């Protein structure tokens, strides 16, 4: 069995997870990455996506996050999510509303930089929706 490390998932409202885990898959801004114990220190932004947490006991949990940061140290990992929910508790109407908002943002964007950023965010959200639907 792989070495365990401390993983914490916090959203502004509360601390969602704080436990010993084997591995965590996080949707980094520049690609997904799997974290295991003794990972080199990395700090990354995360995009909307699914975080898969494999607990030390072998149990797997999935959380949906909407952007945030990950602070990774050899001794542990802290994920600061802007908003996070367990995959079973995801509210589809809420997700649809976020997508709608993002779409409006993209339409209202004043310059190209803002538009491309909004569109990127929108595409991340729709990908997320696609990934969740069959689940």
């Amino acid at each position, binding site marked *: 069995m792989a070495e365990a490390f401390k993983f914490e998932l*916090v959203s502004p409202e509360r601390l969602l997870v704080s436990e010993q885990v084997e591995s965590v898959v996080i949707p980094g*801004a520049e690609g997904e990455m799997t974290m295991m114990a003794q990972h080199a*220190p990395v*700090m990354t932004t995360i995009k909307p996506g699914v975080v898969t947490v494999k607990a030390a006991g072998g149990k797997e949990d999935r959380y949906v996050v909407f952007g945030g940061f990950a*602070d990774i*140290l050899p001794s542990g990992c802290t994920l600061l999510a802007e908003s996070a929910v367990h995959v079973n508790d995801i509210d589809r109407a809420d997700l649809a509303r976020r997508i709608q908002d993002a779409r409006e943002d993209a339409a209202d964007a004043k310059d190209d930089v803002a538009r491309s950023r909004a569109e990127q965010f929108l595409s991340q959200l729709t990908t997320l929706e696609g990934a969740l639907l069959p689940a």
Partner: protein
Amino acid sequence: MASLKDLRNRIASVKATQKITKAMQMVAAAKLRRAQEAAEAARPYSERMGAVLANITQAIGGGGDAPALMTGTGRDDVHLLIVCTAERGLCGGFNSQIARLARDHIRRLLADGKQVKIICVGKKGFDILRRDYASLILERIDLREVKTLGFVNADAIARKVIHLFNEGGFDICTLFYSQFKSVISQIPTAQQIIPAAQASTAAATGNGATAVYEYEPEPGEILSDLIPRNIAVQIFRALLENAAGEMGAKMSAMDNATRNAGDMINRLSITYNRQRQAQITKELIEIISGAEAL
């Protein structure tokens, strides 16, 4: 002297008031617990955020690529004050304490010839500040419809503030709220959020500061994403502390009111009984002196 009937009515009305204040106290106590829990649950996030921010600031080392939100505009001519108060009254000196702190601050800034802009969060602060500084108030943010305070509420405020900053609307932003110390003590606080105070750097030297991080994407880019979020977190924390403080203040104010009503009922009952006895005595005397006259 009030008649017996008047006294009876008086006592009944004070009793009704006492019931109301008692109920409000109990509601406030229940809400306080929830607000306190929310404030405590939000604490880890802002703590971690502070640590991350401190780390990354150190990595950048105050170099040229730090965003303007952090370093400021280099001037301090225009001040933006975000005054967070409660939406409702009946909570003792809670709102007026925050407003007084803000007003003192405004007066000092105006005396120094600075320009002041105000954003009011919550109705009560708006009502108080409107009397003297109506022309300075940019906006009033209403959270009355909000049942449970979410991060989205704070985020919306932060977004407005950042937007204003990017347009060059102000140089320095200060947040006014009440820090929740305990149920009976809330401390009105002024906290500068833009440019971000450098105080957090000192805290970094604790655990992770020695580690050399890899950044993905570049530190500057992370920072420019992190700082606005940090502002939202600060505002969120202020709102939560305020919510807890409001309930604490309301609870003790209502407790006082209930006790006052109790005292009043006691006093009124004594007067009522005394007067009733006086009347009985008077009637007796009349009957007896009538009988003696025969």
